[in-house]
């Protein structure tokens, strides 16, 4: 029984770690495409980030992390602030 639980634990851990995470954040102040470039480029420089998508009408940035990687809320806030904007609400999906 212990072995089964151990195997299940390892499988669960490995599979969780192998998944990429999709994070969306609303951004206050992001009103033009010219301005949004800074956010896109700054997120792309993060080693954990695989893709970045900007939805200007909704003022939302969607980040997909590399498998097994994540970005903390604090890091996302730091990137958005460093780009000159204010972070809104964060939503995460594995």
């Amino acid at each position, binding site marked *: 029984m212990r072995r089964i639980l151990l195997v299940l634990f390892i499988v669960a851990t490995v599979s969780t770690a192998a998944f990429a995470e999709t994070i969306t954040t609303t951004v206050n102040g992001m009103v033009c495409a010219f*301005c949004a470039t800074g956010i896109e480029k700054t997120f792309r420089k993060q080693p954990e980030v695989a893709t970045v998508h900007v939805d200007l009408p909704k003022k939302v940035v969607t980040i997909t992390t590399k498998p097994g990687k994540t970005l903390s809320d604090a890091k996302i806030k730091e990137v958005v602030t460093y780009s*000159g904007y204010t972070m809104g609400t964060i939503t995460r999906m594995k």
Partner: protein
Amino acid sequence: MKTFNQLPYYLILASLVLGGAAKTAQAKPLSYVGGTMVMQENDETGHTLSIDYTFDPHFALGLYSKYEINQKEFWMVGPEINTLIKRWNLPDGQGNIFSMTGVGTARQGGNTQLAAWAYFLADYETRRWFFSYEPRFTYAGNIEKSFWQRGYAGFAPYLANYDQLNTWFLIRLDHHPAKNEHFVVTPVIRFFYKTIWLEAGYSSNNHVMVNWTVQF
């Protein structure tokens, strides 16, 4: 009381305090950290070329050059520093106050003078509306001493997404208190796509205006 001849030293001091050099424009004078911006303007006041590197969310350093043609011709060049003094990030809009100041030289024929300039830009934009106001102070010894101001107001006829061509219709009003034509009005059409920005217009004093900016 300060004489006008002492003005350059106060402008230099203001430049050092505020950051800054000259620039133009309604593309914002800062890009993202690590970004380089090349901006070129051709309008009824002259021809401008500037290159700026943004090294901090609030500061960009660069080189500014302008060939002035508004009544008297002279060339001005120097390093500039652009400063984001204040930004308001709102859910549906953004407001900014920038300063753009610099110190360099001005040349008119064989006459070379110390030059200093301080421009300020206040803007507010939403996805639909854009407004800006920009007072400019220039000192170039016995070549030029001027204050003039510029305002833009405009709207986007459609709301484009990030990876689509954005189009704006604007009216630009320049006020030159020391020139023969105090007021110059220019209807402007502006396009931008991601990091490329272009605007064109034709002024009330019959000058073609073409400005462009590229970030990389």
